[in-house]
């Protein structure tokens, strides 16, 4: 999940409290299913987390992003994909090569997160057992090649 949003922009609501309530209402099913803490309702927990972030000087929209992208709402595969995408974003050639190598019967295919595996021993991603992607953020470097 990228972020939590309300139906309207933040400025539409009376104050931050009302906006947080609106965000909760708009994402009720997801939040209720995942945000469980003993002795507290999901809504109270959600509001408390966002307020704690705001009190520490984080922007309200950034707080929503931080919560939505944490391990509470994302699966391991989603996080792997997000990491890979952040690497591919910086290099158009690498991204193109990735698209070319994942073609099936001459056609581009949609990205399937379940096919992505992190090879811990070699520090590379492997996709569909067909290609490997090694990249690091600092210093930035990405390399896509067939297995």
């Amino acid at each position: 999940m990228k972020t939590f949003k309300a139906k309207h922009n933040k400025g539409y609501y009376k104050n931050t409290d009302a906006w947080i309530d609106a965000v909760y209402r708009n994402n009720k099913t997801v939040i209720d299913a995942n945000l469980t803490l003993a002795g507290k309702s999901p809504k109270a927990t959600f509001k408390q987390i966002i307020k704690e972030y705001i009190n520490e000087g984080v922007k309200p929209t950034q707080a929503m992003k931080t919560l939505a992208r944490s391990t509470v709402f994302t699966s391991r595969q989603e996080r792997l994909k997000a990491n890979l995408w952040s690497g591919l974003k910086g290099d158009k050639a690498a991204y193109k090569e990735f698209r070319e190598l994942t073609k099936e019967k001459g056609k581009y295919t949609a990205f399937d997160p379940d096919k992505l595996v992190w090879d811990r021993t070699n520090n590379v991603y492997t996709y569909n057992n067909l290609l490997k992607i090694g990249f690091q953020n600092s210093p930035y470097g990405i390399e896509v090649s067939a297995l």
Partner: protein
Amino acid sequence: MISPTHKLVMRAKEAKKKAELGLYLTPNHVFSYHGITDFIYTAVRGIGKSVISVETAIILKRKYGYENVKCFYFRLTDQSIKAMMANKGEKAIDPYLIAKYDMEITAKGNKLYDHGKLLIEFYPLVSAGSKGKGVNLYDCNFFSKYKTEGKKTFIVTIWDEFLMAEGVEKKSIGDPVEQYKIYKEAILRDAEVIKDYDAVYNFLLANNVSECAAVTGALYNYIPNPENHKRTKLTRKRAMFWNVPITQAYIEKRKNSYNANILDYKNDVNYANVQRDLSLVKPKRTRIYKVTSVLKFDKFDKKKWFCIYDGKWVRQYSGETVAKSMYHPMKRYLDGVYNADFVKQIFEMYDNRYLGYTDLMSMALFQSQLKLIKAK
């Protein structure tokens, strides 16, 4: 920066996920500790204790070079070592690890090789044939490679299966704890603790807490609580204890296994949590008054001496001064008057559950010492 409530929620979700899906241990958490050298796991069978301990050595060997990592594997008897090394060591390493790391296992003597490179050395702890003392396993230049050449070197020791299953294996000569200490001395000697990285990993693996009480009591002066499934760190001893909880996923998997028809997973100590017998431990309000005798199981080691208070309560010796006549050696040749009838009387008192214990530690250590005499 993560907000406190957010952190709590993340932890709660992780715990819930582990309880529902957690089937096997992984070596990730071993590497997550800094400054801890001894990892003591008590967990049910088939959860991956032995696998993660060997995997730790394999990961280190593949990353830092086979010659820079030494791995020693201890079992109690030489029969179990022989069984593992049979047919060129094909039963020594879990097939899962062989497939995962693409290994080619061969064996020669008590050593196991992967693609011709030394992987693990196997040693029995309690055996008439091999003794750790006097064996030269220590290399004084091994750890100094880090200072001189900048190469990180590691030592991994694994002691699998603390005590023999009662009645299944025949007991042999010697005290396993003493032998383990002697082997550790032979391997590490006076090697100084390296603070830059964790160079030593010692694994001690047992199936349940009651099984490990005598060993952990003697080595770390600590007995884990079977109801506590949190990881306990003893910082000064550089040890981490984990009584791994049985997950719902594990129970479900066992229920659907082929063995479910013949094994009793509810009551078998190897698969279920065991309760401690605390009925012989002294109630808090009961006072002890006077030492009536001191039982000696060793000539010099006062950790193996026990006081009997008021003719009933056994307590570890802690420097009590008593008349010479009160010292009773439990074996021959301990520099004292050996009275076979008195020893027999102590055994009878123990067998009839007359003796009580002032604390858990005394109970575990006293029982293990009595068992060692009985084994002979």
